[in-house]
């Protein structure tokens, strides 16, 4: 009861020497003046209001960062500048027109500031003599060639524009953009080689770069058009066919590899001597006589092969046939007149050995049969495709004859 009261308002007279009178609250009266001055100093240093200072406490913040604005350098001239209205010439102009502009009085009177940007493409300029000598061509007149070179110069070899500006001469064959490019390249190359008949390697390289295959370009553009104009279905179909093709190739490669492996493996066993060895009685006697022991002991085999010491039941060591192959294997065995069982009737060493040999041979035979079937179907499929192609080729030739003669002429030229 008294405890609560003690807690709320401790009684100085309560029992115990520990009970001290509560310490007086830190009065501000005594050190007031000092504090006020310190506060004012801090306030002035930081440049903040008194409320903020009270929030902070007396401890100034550890780092005080103020950002300085990045202002333009203030250039201050002592006196005003003089500007004058001045005519100028540009080396980029060909007509010598002198325009006028405001220029600083101290500025020099040299070439116009932007004339260095007037880059031109080095289009060759041939003389009449050079043209006579080696630039002539039946389907291009001199005027046409000149016009072309002028356009190239004017438009910096931007052929779409040049082609657009091109005017076909009525008496001459129509030129399309590839023809123009080809003619330009031809002229440049011929002029350069005429002027410099013995080029050094770097020049030779530059010369070699002046090639343009008109037909290839046409084809390329046609292919791009086809590619661009495919429908979504066609795109999907192509992706699917491509994946299928990859699978086929993989399978084919694997098959070829297996084929090679089996063929090479078999060629080892094709010794005619082996056939002679199949005379049974002679073989058994020979086997027995290969024993090192002087007498032939029944039931004892002497081999030089590595033998792991051990005890086992002979029939337990027979190799097994995979269940998938089991039926086929037994069928073949039966064909050969052997009882279709998985172990021999009288499984002695000699008999078991032959049994295993037969098993291995039959399995290999089955594999060979499978391979023969595969290659036969392969051959049939490919022959069929070849026949189709031959037939299609005949039809394609006939169709092509009906197309425009110019294109046909080109095609025939390439074929030869």
């Amino acid at each position, binding site marked *: 009861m008294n405890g609560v009261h003690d807690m709320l308002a401790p009684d100085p007279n309560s029992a115990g020497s520990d009970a001290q009178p509560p310490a007086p609250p830190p009065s501000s009266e005594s050190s007031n003046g000092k504090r006020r001055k310190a506060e004012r100093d801090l306030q002035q240093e930081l440049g903040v209001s008194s409320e903020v200072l009270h929030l902070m406490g007396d401890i100034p913040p550890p780092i005080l960062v103020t950002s300085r604005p990045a202002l333009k350098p203030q250039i201050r001239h002592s006196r005003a500048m003089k500007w004058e209205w001045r005519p100028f010439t540009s080396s980029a102009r060909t007509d010598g027109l002198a325009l006028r502009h405001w220029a600083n009085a101290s500025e020099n009177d040299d070439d116009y500031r932007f004339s260095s940007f007037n880059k031109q493409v080095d289009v060759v300029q041939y003389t009449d003599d050079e043209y006579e000598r080696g630039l002539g061509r039946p389907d291009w007149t001199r005027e046409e060639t000149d016009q072309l070179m002028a356009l190239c110069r004017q438009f910096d070899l931007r052929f779409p524009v040049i082609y657009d500006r091109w005017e076909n001469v009525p008496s001459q064959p129509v030129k399309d953009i590839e023809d123009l490019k080809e003619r330009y390249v031809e002229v440049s190359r011929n002029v350069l080689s005429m002027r410099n008949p013995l080029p050094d390697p770097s020049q030779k390289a530059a010369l070699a770069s002046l090639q343009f295959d008109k037909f290839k370009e046409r084809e390329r553009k046609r292919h791009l058009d086809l590619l661009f104009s495919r429908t979504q279905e066609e795109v999907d179909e192509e992706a699917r066919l491509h994946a299928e093709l990859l699978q086929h190739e993989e399978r084919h490669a694997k098959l070829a590899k297996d084929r090679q492996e089996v063929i090479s493996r078999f060629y080892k066993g094709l010794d005619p001597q082996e056939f002679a060895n199949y005379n049974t009685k002679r073989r058994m006697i020979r086997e027995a006589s290969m024993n090192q022991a002087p007498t032939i002991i029944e039931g004892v085999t002497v081999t030089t092969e590595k033998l792991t010491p051990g005890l086992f039941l002979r029939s337990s060591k027979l190799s097994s046939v995979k269940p998938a192959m089991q039926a086929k294997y037994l069928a073949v065995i039966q064909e050969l007149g052997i009882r279709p069982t998985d172990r021999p*009737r009288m499984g002695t060493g000699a008999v078991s050995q032959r049994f295993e040999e037969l098993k291995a041979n039959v399995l290999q035979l089955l594999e060979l049969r499978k391979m023969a079937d595969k*290659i036969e179907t392969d051959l049939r499929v490919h022959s069929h495709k070849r026949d189709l192609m031959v037939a299609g080729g005949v039809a394609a030739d006939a169709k092509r004859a009906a197309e425009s003669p110019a294109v046909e002429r080109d095609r025939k030229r390439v074929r030869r």
Partner: protein
Amino acid sequence: MATRRKKGIQAALPIVYGNETSKLPDDAPELQLGHTHQWTVYVRGPNGADIAHYVRKVVFRLHESFTNAVRTIEAPPFEVTETGWGEFEIVIAVHLHDFPERPIKLTHMLRLFPPEDQAVIDDPSRPDLLVMERYDEIVLNEPTEAFYDQFLQNISKTYPMTGPVWNRGAEVTEAEMLDRANIEVLRQMEELRRRIMEKDQGLARVKAELAAGAAMQGVLGDSAGRL
């Protein structure tokens, strides 16, 4: 060391195992229990050969419905005779004298009725007897000197291969049959191999033709629009 091994030597101990069975006579008391046959499952040497000099014991594990289903026989004849009505699999473990830790495991399907898929040989002297017997061999790779010596001593006992069923003649006949089959298989393989080579060459030719044709078409562009 006393147990030196004979390198390169493989010794084979022939055994026959299986069961004989005959129908119970009409006056047999076991008929009351529903049994129909008397049968004996056994492990013997072929043609009565003695196997006791290397077989220590044979353990027959019968169907659990038999009392004391595990029968251990430690002296010849290594066989168990019982009566019953059912056919079941019997697991047999043959323990040799020199290899106490490694018994040879055999399984035999007890037969009371002749199976359809096998030819039945009738012995006129015992018309009611059905015998289902298998031939097998226990093989020892690199036996110890001691074992080998004993084996050689007992060879005449081990190999009386002159009985009616299991004899040298039968072995040679089977070996000859297998040899003939092997020759035939090799011949067929050779034929197939030749055929495969031919077809392979033909295929290569056709493929070359296809490739040449496709190359031509690729340059010109097929009129049907195929690339």
